[in-house]
Structure formats: C-alpha cells, structure tokens
C-alpha cells in the first residue's frame, strides 16, 4: 500500500502551489480532513476557509478564477456534487472558468460515516457537465501528477481523491497524459477497465485469475473525461470482453463512459459493470464495505469469468 491519497494531495498542493502564486485554495471547514490545511498554514493569504457554506465557496472560487487565479476547491466529494453543483455548472462548465474541484473522501472511503458521506454519484454528475475534465486518482504518484496537471491546464476539472491508502501501481518516473489510460498489466482473455481504488483490486483479481490460466489486461482509466476511446476500442478488439470497475454507482460513471464508446464506435460489446448496484451502502470498515457492495476482488473475478463466458456464447 502507498501513502494515503489525501496526504499526498495536501503535500502536492504545497509543493506546486509554492511555485505559482496564482494558486489559491478554498475549503469548507474540513481542511484537516481534505489536507488542504497544509497549504493554508504555509500560504495563509492565498487560503480561504469559507466555513460550512459549500455553495458560496464554489462561487467565490469562480470569482477568484475570473481574476486569473487557479482555485482549488476542497470538501467532501458528496457536498461538491450536490451543494456546490450550481456554481460548478454555471461558472465552471458554462463560463469555462479555470476552477479545480477536488472531491475528497471519494466513493465509500469515508466508510464509517455512512451513506450520507459516501460519494457514489460524483463521476456521473461531473461527467455530464460540458467543458469539465474528470479524473480519478488511483495511487499516490497519479495523485501528485493530477495536482501538477490541474495547475498547468486551463480548464474546469473535477478530481476525485480517496481518503485512504491505495495500492501503488506507478513509480515516481511514470508519465501521465490526460485522455490516455494506462495499461497496468497485459492479458488477452478479458480487460478490466478500472479507476481509483478499483485499479488495485483489479491487479489483485488479475493475479488470482492467472492462477486459473485466465489472463486479464488491466487498465487504469483515470481520465474519465476525456476518456481514452482508442484504448477502449483496442482492448475490446484484443480481448472481446470488458469489465468496468469503479467505486461508484454502476449508473453513469466509468462503466457508462466505456459503454458509450463501445456502442457508438463499434466495439465488441460484452461488458460487465462492477460498481455499487444502484443503492446506498451503509457504515462499516472500508474493506468490508467494498466486499459487501460488490467491489471486492472476488466480485471482480466473478465478473471477469462471466464476461468471458458471454464472449464465448456470442462466438
């Protein structure tokens, strides 16, 4: 396991924010949780704690962006995509202001706080907003790059960060590019296209499947929008069976994005959706929650086997 994504994020904000005085950071009284507090400590004049008032925080950030600043907007993902949404839509999406929405505690990672604090809709919501780019951090090195990239690229962005440690799949030398998914492991029998914590789960599932002589390609589709259409179609042609895996509702997220590509551009359409099955979860220990709500390694293994069986049925 690597370092927790939020710790890496907080450090990256300080490191890259130091070099660019246009970087400003806003938080809604959860800066010790999102880890934006470190930036506030080092650069107090560029840190705005807006209190527990997310809608105002987001629109304040829009005004800051209108003066050329690069605002990083921090709170739990679930509150950004609900209370903060009007500002995201009107100022980020419609006005193309250079706003960075950092969804902390993505997915089920705030596990003990329960469904009121889980975020299983954020990818779907931000993905529908024109002009938005949407990314999901899968490990510590990607988290770091996402911060750097957000400062360099002038576009409204949503970046989902996990509360917790995730399996390290990259090295400090790994190069990333928006719109280009990463092939983590090669295989010809099926492809798991995952994001976030599910990338680590997919690697583990692939290891288990290899013991049964089933070889799975694993892709980290951290770039949900723009999505890597070529890599999806190539994987579909290569393996004929796709399993999408996300710590998100099965509706409208990564699975939806991949299905849109497959159905629109002539991919071989065998796709299994691993995600939370259109329900709210509950509180509990994180890995137990992942298992119970269909995001465990065993669920992924079963989904791959089902996809391969469907592929064979189709012939």
């Amino acid at each position, binding site marked *: 396991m690597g370092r927790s994504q939020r710790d890496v994020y907080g450090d990256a904000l300080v490191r890259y924010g130091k070099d660019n005085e246009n970087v*400003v950071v806003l938080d809604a009284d959860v800066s010790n949780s999102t880890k934006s507090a470190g930036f506030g400590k080092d650069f107090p*004049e*560029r840190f*705005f704690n*807006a*209190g527990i*008032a997310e*809608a*105002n*925080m*987001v*629109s*304040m*950030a*829009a*005004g*800051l*962006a*209108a*003066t*050329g*600043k690069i*605002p990083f907007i921090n709170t739990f993902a679930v509150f950004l995509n609900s209370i903060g949404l*009007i*500002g995201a839509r*009107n*100022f980020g999406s*419609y*006005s*193309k202001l250079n706003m960075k929405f950092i969804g902390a505690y993505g997915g089920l990672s705030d596990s003990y706080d329960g469904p009121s604090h889980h975020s299983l809709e954020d990818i779907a919501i931000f993905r529908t907003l024109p002009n938005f780019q949407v990314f999901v951090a899968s490990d510590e090195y990607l988290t770091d790059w996402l911060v750097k990239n957000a400062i360099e690229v002038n576009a409204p962005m949503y970046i989902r960060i996990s509360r917790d440690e995730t399996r390290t799949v990259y090295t400090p030398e790994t190069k990333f590019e928006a719109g280009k998914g990463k092939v983590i492991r090669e295989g010809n029998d099926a492809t798991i296209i995952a994001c976030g914590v599910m990338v680590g789960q997919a690697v583990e599932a692939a290891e288990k499947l290899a013991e049964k002589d089933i070889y799975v390609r694993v892709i980290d589709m951290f770039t949900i929008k723009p999505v890597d259409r070529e890599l999806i179609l190539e994987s579909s042609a290569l393996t004929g069976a796709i399993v999408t895996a996300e710590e998100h509702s099965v509706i409208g997220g990564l699975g939806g994005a991949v299905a849109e590509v497959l159905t629109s551009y002539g991919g071989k359409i065998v796709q299994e959706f691993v995600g939370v099955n259109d329900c709210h979860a509950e509180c509990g220990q994180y890995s137990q929650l992942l298992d119970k709500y269909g995001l465990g390694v065993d669920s992924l293994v079963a989904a791959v086997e089902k996809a391969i069986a469907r592929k064979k049925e189709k012939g």
Partner: protein
Amino acid sequence: MSISLSRKQELDDLCRKFRMDLIELLYSIQTGHPGGSLSVCEILTALYFEKARVDPKNPGWEHRDRIVLAKGHAAPMLYRILAEKGFFPVEEMKTLRQLNTRLQGHPCALETPGVELSTGPLGIGLSAALGIALGLKLSKIDSTVYAVMGDGELNEGTVWEALMSASKFKADNLVIIIDRNNVQLDGTADEIMPMGDLKAKLEAFGCEVFECDGHNISELCDAIDNAKAVKEKPAAIIARTVKGKGISFMEGESAWHGKPIGFEEYKTAMAELRGEE
C-alpha cells in the same frame, strides 16, 4: 462630490431613452423581463455612465471596475446600457434571445463584450463578485466590484453565506447594490418571503449600509461614493425602487416580472414614457 443638475438631467434623459428602447424591444420580440429591467435602470446608468471605471475599447482592462449583474434577468437593460457605452452595436439589441445571438436570455460573459460574469441562477452572483474582490486584492489591483442584486434574490441562503464571508475577509472593495423593488415573480416580497428590516439584517451580517431613492441618480451617485469610502468591511446600498418603474400599469405588479407586452399595452407604455398622459 454630488453630480450637477445638468448632468443629472442628461442621465435622466438617457434613462428615459433606455426605457423606451426596452419596451420597443420586448414588445417586438415578445419575451424578456420588463419589470426588473425598469427598476434597475438608474442603478446601472449611475454605474456605467458616472461612477464605474470601464473601457469599451478594452473590455478586459485589468484596472477596470467590475460590475456583476447578479439579478441576471435584468439582462435587457444591461445590454442596452453596454451597447450605449459602445461595447457592441445598439443595432444588435434586436437579436436578444434569438438563435445565434451574442445576447443570451441571461448574461453570458463568454459571448457578450462587457459582461463581467455569467449570471442567471439567483444567489450565486454575490459569492462570485466577492471572489473577484478577493482576487483583485491578492493581485493588488485597486478596482471596485459592484454586485447589483435583486431583493427577491435575497431569499437565497447563499447570499447570506456570501455576506458572512465578505465581512470575514474584509472585502472593502465590494459594493453591493440592492434593487429593492419589493416585488418578486409570484407576488410582493412581503407575500413570498418577507425580508423584514433589511438594513438591520445587512448590518448584522457585517455590512455598512446606505439607503437611497434608487430612481434618483444624484442620490445613487452619493450613496456609491459613500459606499466606496468604507474600509475594512463590505458596503451595501439599499436602493429603493419600483418594479416596472415609469409605466403606470406595470409599477409594483408582479405579473410584469416576465410577461410579453400586448399591442394596447405597448401603445400606452410608449405614450407614458414620451410624457403624453
């Protein structure tokens, strides 16, 4: 220093022209919001023609004052004034709300020269104006940000969040002007959501508050001067206005928030604006 009587007369004449053009236009296109456009006329005229620093030849000028029309539905009046200032041809007004226009139903900063921020959803314009004010302070740019708000908009909780924040961050480069016309879409403000003692509320949220007749340009200019002089806290001006101002049958009538204008109504309105009883 107060404006001269002759200058006041010039600006009053300008407002009369804006009202007549507004009625002509909204009658011809059969859409758009007359009520709130008529009430905010003098406020925007005082800003654009007397108090605010803007340059139509250089809309992105770093040292301009920023005017944010938080009550975005008054776009027709904003556009008419921007056109008069020279941001785009007056001729373009007739494309308002039509396909392929730069003049969207609510202000769009990406499309229309001179529009500072895209607004329309009520309650978030003040937050964004505050963000601009904070950004300008960080950049050490000595400009004033004017947030022109409706009083119905004050129903939105975000407005009060923004006021708390403006106070906390000592946004003394922010001047809030409230078009206090007492009428919303569904009825009077008192019927829909009574604001009670608005001055006391704004003061309680940390503003220095001024009041004036929102149809008297001299009073508006004086209030703006006073508001700009406030230090260490945001300033708010409650500009007492009449919704539908200048047209007898529209005045104070919520029905005229966004109703198309009929032929007889158009004739009556124009006669009244020309000064024929």
